[in-house]
């Protein structure tokens, strides 16, 4: 499937190099960047709505905080939620698709019908209700067990799980299709004749063969989850202040667009960072998919 040379071949394109560069730069800046800022940039200060300058390249916000600092903090949360949420969806989708495809017949039919139905239900709306129903309970539960980390990060943990819960459908479909094709191949028949258990056939023979495909769709799920998270945070129902993600920063930025005074940097810089990241992820995912499956 995905030969070793494929990644190198994709990277020979200049656009792919630029995309990979963007991703590495954003990830590195998000990882170490926020620590480099002096205290006065992080906390509310007197410099309200300063436009971009050498001192504050992205300007400052309503409370005088540096926007670059906040964009990098937001990148941290958005990227973590995106990666972890995609990992959850990968686990769910792969398991579901493997079981459906391997079982075949009526089980497969019923399982895929369920996926069809879920495709046509507004899943994000249910997630919104779900998050708001459980967040309080989780925090209470964590407080009783004295898990401080979960008390402050309960929203993020719930977001990761629930967003993973809604983006697994495509993965399940792809994996199932691949398994249906693979299981009629002779090496699977051979394994079955040799008396290997179903579990072993799935983990030893099917899984390694669909791994490249899973990795490709993981690349495409990460931007989808980041977009979902920003949607919830934009509405004020995702990440809660004082924490910030790209979505909540953009919500502040969108409010700053009004006829009286336009603080464009509050919208432009978070939007540019987020869009560049999503574009890079989508582009690389597309290229990987094209290499893997030239038919598409």
């Amino acid at each position: 499937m995905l030969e070793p040379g494929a990644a190198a071949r994709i990277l020979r394109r200049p656009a792919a190099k630029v995309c990979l560069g963007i991703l590495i730069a954003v990830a590195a800046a998000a990882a170490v960047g926020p620590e480099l800022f002096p205290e006065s940039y992080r906390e509310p200060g007197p410099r309200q709505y300063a436009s971009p300058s050498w001192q504050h390249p992205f300007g400052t916000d309503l409370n005088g905080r540096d926007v670059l600092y906040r964009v990098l903090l937001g990148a941290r949360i958005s990227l973590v939620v995106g990666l972890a949420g995609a990992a959850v969806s990968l686990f769910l989708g792969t398991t579901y698709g493997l079981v459906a495809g391997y079982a075949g017949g009526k089980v497969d039919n019923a399982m895929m019908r369920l996926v069809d139905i879920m495709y046509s239900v507004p899943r994000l709306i249910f997630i919104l209700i779900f998050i708001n129903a459980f967040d309080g309970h989780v925090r209470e539960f964590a407080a009783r067990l004295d898990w401080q980390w979960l008390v402050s990060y309960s929203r993020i943990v719930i977001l990761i799980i629930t967003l993973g819960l809604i983006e697994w459908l495509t993965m399940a479909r792809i994996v199932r299709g691949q398994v249906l094709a693979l299981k009629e191949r002779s090496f699977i028949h051979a394994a079955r004749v040799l008396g290997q258990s179903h579990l072993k056939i799935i983990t030893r023979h099917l899984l390694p063969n669909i791994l490249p495909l899973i990795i490709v769709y993981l690349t495409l799920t990460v931007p989808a989850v980041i977009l979902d998270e920003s949607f919830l945070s934009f509405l004020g129902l995702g990440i809660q202040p004082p924490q910030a993600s790209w979505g909540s920063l953009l919500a502040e930025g969108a409010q700053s667009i009004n006829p009286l005074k336009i603080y464009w940097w509050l919208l432009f810089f978070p939007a540019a960072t987020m869009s560049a990241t999503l574009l890079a992820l989508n582009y690389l995912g597309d290229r990987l998919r094209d290499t893997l499956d030239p038919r598409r």
Partner: protein
Amino acid sequence: MLKLILRRLPALFFVLFCVITLTFFLVRLAPGGPFDRERKIPPAIEAQLLAKYKLDGPLWSQFTGYLADLARGDLRLSTKYRNRSVNEILAQTLPVTFALGGLAFLLATSSGVWLGTFAAVRRNTASDRLAMAGALLGLSIPMFVVGPILVLVFGLWLKWLPVGGWGSPAQLILPAITLAIPFAAVIARLMRTSLLEVLNQDFVRTAKAKGLADRTVVYKHALRVAILPVVTYLGPLAAHLLTGSIVVETVFNIPGAGGFFVNSILNRDGFLLGGVVIVYCALLIVFNLLVDASYALLDRRIRVDA
């Protein structure tokens, strides 16, 4: 077609039932009630309030009572907007959401199909690459970024279009474009892939071999088959548009159902929340059924076993 609809009906009611149950219990699981205020309400008054909004008694009998009311088409009273029924609120706000969603639906499908065909016919040329780069961009920029940017450019700088609000057709243009862009991008990509595949098939070669003009081959023969994946996407598209309209209504200050949905979560307004979700899901279920039925009409091979 009628047979298909009748056969699907029981499953559809089951899905709707699941949606209602899930929503009802999720709302009830949330901590805090609709009448929690900073100052505690006297117990006698709270009991009366709960009775008025049918929130008293054991949870199970509340649920069966709710189902019975729903069967009569009564979505109950909103606990936040006192004395207004959910039916009344939805009757005022849903037409707004539908006008917005409907226009975005038309925009997304027409421009998506056009762009995808445009790119596929010019495969591997500069115009193809440009069109697909545009689609990738449309897919990667969130609606709540596109919206404010359009407002900034066309509303505040050029002053061509109103920045928000509701009432005149001009106020519909920017929100509908904002809502349509990402889905037009998805459809364009679907359309291009599918058309490229169809153009390689035998019947296209036959049509070309018998001397038909390229135009006729693409638009009369290939497009008809190539459009099927787009038709399959219409169901999810409707769901995405309803979800997306929540954001667009917020950005453009449009008095649609989306704003009420967000507020109903924040206010713990269970019946309003339930009403919006149930009506959305019921509509989507019906819409999907129609899409499935039209799918059978479009592709004759499917009609045989349907």
